[in-house]
């Protein structure tokens, strides 16, 4: 029943970086005359990648910048050739690597829809059939006969996406294009992708917004330095990816937890009279960590971080950096971090807690994203920081 949509077999890709490659016939001639040989080095963007993408699955491809995600996508699409290995694909492929590929400034929206649709593989007849739907989706009824050079960048992107979601591929390759437009538009984009899934189409999605992988995909693939680092359910792959990001930020996430001390629970407590969804700037937040040591451990350190919804590290502190000493722990112990006076005007923040040895070499336990709180957007405060400010007004004579 489950067919293979894309079979990736031992695929490697190297880019030859030639130092001062001749870019003109003149240069080539002079190089020949001077008998200059070219220096180059090979950069392996991908090495020995093997993966089978089944028909009807949605693969989330994640990894840090430069890990080879886009290169892999371009090879599946046929834009780049593998250096070694074979990619076999079945069915019509549409690659959304750039919204509005081939849009021409001097053409109207209507003309560009037909041009772009043909580039994405639709025939004229097929485009005719979905044209109204494209215009509805982009919400550009009044501007469809205006040249796109007069469009705002938002309108341009919307039109590009509207065409893109109306293509009729068996395999859809999407590269970082979902983060377009306002929230309502994004919602419809996601709906559209979900209906693609229901129709049994195969989707490969490259994204930095890893929550999308969890929400949309059925499988996750994480690339790291050109090799497949991990595959599996979106949850496990996203967790591994977050862990990698965390590792770059905080030194104590190293190796597997030994579980000599376990984090029994992490509780984020809002200030009195409020809920965690309704925290206000300047409030206090308490992070309460319950530890349980199965055997006696000398002098552990509890560390806490806050990340925002873009996985940016906003805050980190530990009992060691705060000058507290936990001493010898056996059995249960409770540690409370009271974060006084939150300096944010809005946003959602995620709490991660770790327990390590004092030299930070041994990780006892890690509780990633074990809690969160959010500060609702306040219309009169759109800046990032909330700073306690005193006002002093006096006569300056």
């Amino acid at each position, binding site marked *: 029943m489950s067919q293979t949509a894309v079979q990736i077999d031992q695929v490697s890709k190297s880019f030859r970086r030639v130092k001062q490659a001749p*870019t003109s016939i003149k240069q080539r001639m002079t190089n020949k005359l001077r008998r200059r040989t070219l220096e180059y080095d090979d950069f392996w963007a991908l090495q020995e990648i093997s993966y089978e993408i089944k028909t009807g699955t949605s693969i989330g491809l994640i990894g840090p910048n430069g890990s080879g995600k886009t290169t892999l996508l371009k090879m599946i699409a046929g834009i780049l050739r593998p250096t070694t290995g074979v990619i076999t694909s079945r069915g019509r492929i549409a690659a959304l690597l750039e919204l509005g590929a081939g849009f021409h400034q*001097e053409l109207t929206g209507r*003309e560009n829809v037909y*041009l772009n649709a043909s*580039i994405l593989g639709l025939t004229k007849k097929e485009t005719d059939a979905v044209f109204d739907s494209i215009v509805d989706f982009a919400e550009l009824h009044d501007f469809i006969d205006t040249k796109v050079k007069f469009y705002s960048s938002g309108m341009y992107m919307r039109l590009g996406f509207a065409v893109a979601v109306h293509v009729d591929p068996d395999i859809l390759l999407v590269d970082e294009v979902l983060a377009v437009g306002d929230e309502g538009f994004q919602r419809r984009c996601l709906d559209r992708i979900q209906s693609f899934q229901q129709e049994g189409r195969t989707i490969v999605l490259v994204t930095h917004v890893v929550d999308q992988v969890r929400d949309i995909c059925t499988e996750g693939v994480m690339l790291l330095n050109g090799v497949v680092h991990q595959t599996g359910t979106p949850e496990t792959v996203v967790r591994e990816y977050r862990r990698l990001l965390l590792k770059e930020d905080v030194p104590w996430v190293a190796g597997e937890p030994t579980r000599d001390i376990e984090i029994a629970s992490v509780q984020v407590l809002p200030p009195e009279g409020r809920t965690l969804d309704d925290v206000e700037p300047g409030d206090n937040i308490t992070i309460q960590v319950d530890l349980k040591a199965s055997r006696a451990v000398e002098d552990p350190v509890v560390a806490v971080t806050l990340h925002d919804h873009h996985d940016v590290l906003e805050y980190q502190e530990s009992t060691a950096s705060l000058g507290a000493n936990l001493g010898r722990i056996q059995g249960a112990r409770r540690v409370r971090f009271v974060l006084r006076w939150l300096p944010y005007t809005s946003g959602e923040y995620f709490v991660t807690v770790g327990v390590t040895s004092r030299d930070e070499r041994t990780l006892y336990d890690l509780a990633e994203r074990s809690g969160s709180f959010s500060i609702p957007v306040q219309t009169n405060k759109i800046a990032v920081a909330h700073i306690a400010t005193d006002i002093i007004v006096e006569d300056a004579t």
Partner: protein
Amino acid sequence: MTKPQASKGEERQQAATRPLLDSPPVATSARTDRTTLRTSESARFGLLTRGADIWAYREILVNLIRKDLRVKYTQSKLGAFWSMLNPILYLAIFSFVFTVVLPPTIPNFPVYLLSGLVVWNLFNGTLAIASRSIVDNTSLVKKVYFPKEILPLSSVGVTLVDFALQTLVLIVFMVVFGYPFLGLNMLLFPLALVALVLFTTAIAFWVSGLNVRYRDTQHLLNLVLLAWFWFTPIVYPAAQMEKTLSNVFGVDLFPVYLVLNPVADIVFAFQRAFYADPTPMLNGESTDVLVSLGVGQLALLMVAVIIGSAILLRITWKSFFKMAGDFAEEL
């Protein structure tokens, strides 16, 4: 395309509620059975498979040509008149030089000039656009998969439209000078046009691929084309060229010229087709204007050019195809 058209647009939602799991939509479609293989080697070059690939993406070709024409013509108030203005301007300048400044040697000069100039403009115009066609469409080449041949082919398409418009100007002058449109010589026109398009396409593939690696190809090309123009009898009598070359230190180099300059061969055929009379009357005497080849000989020459161009096209197409796999990396 056996996929039901009903699964389009808004109806797609309904399509999704059908029992898809019993019959996966991907298994029934003819086109989805197409398996694509991508390896380090470019696929084996076969004219049939390349042709089929381009045919499958013909909509892009048509739309790119349409785009170029739209951009070219809707931006200006004069529109399509611009491409007719070029031969008219040439006509004015060369008529002034060759009938006023210099003693006139060619009767009905406009018809003579235009019958060669339409050939040259198609050749020259295509190569100018084709040499930049890959580089100018970098974003497409790097972001979308399609047969890259479409880019140089679209430049041929665009200049063919100009060619048609400029031929209209030629026909107007033929009417003005009372030329007949019927005659055996007119049969040379379709034959020569095929030869022209084949030869131009062959060179277009070559320069467009080369310009990706060596960006000064287009500048070098301009110089070559300038020299080529004056070595081809378009503004001066073809008979003059034949006479000069047929006795170079006692050696007849004219056959060599016919082999080395296929554009001139095609120009000769066009001139014979439209200008018709090789030795028209000038001031009461007959004067040699066209080459001394007969209609039959020119027809044979065109067949030879067609065969030669077809062989050349296969060579340049193959080399273009081999290079095309690396375009996305080299841009």
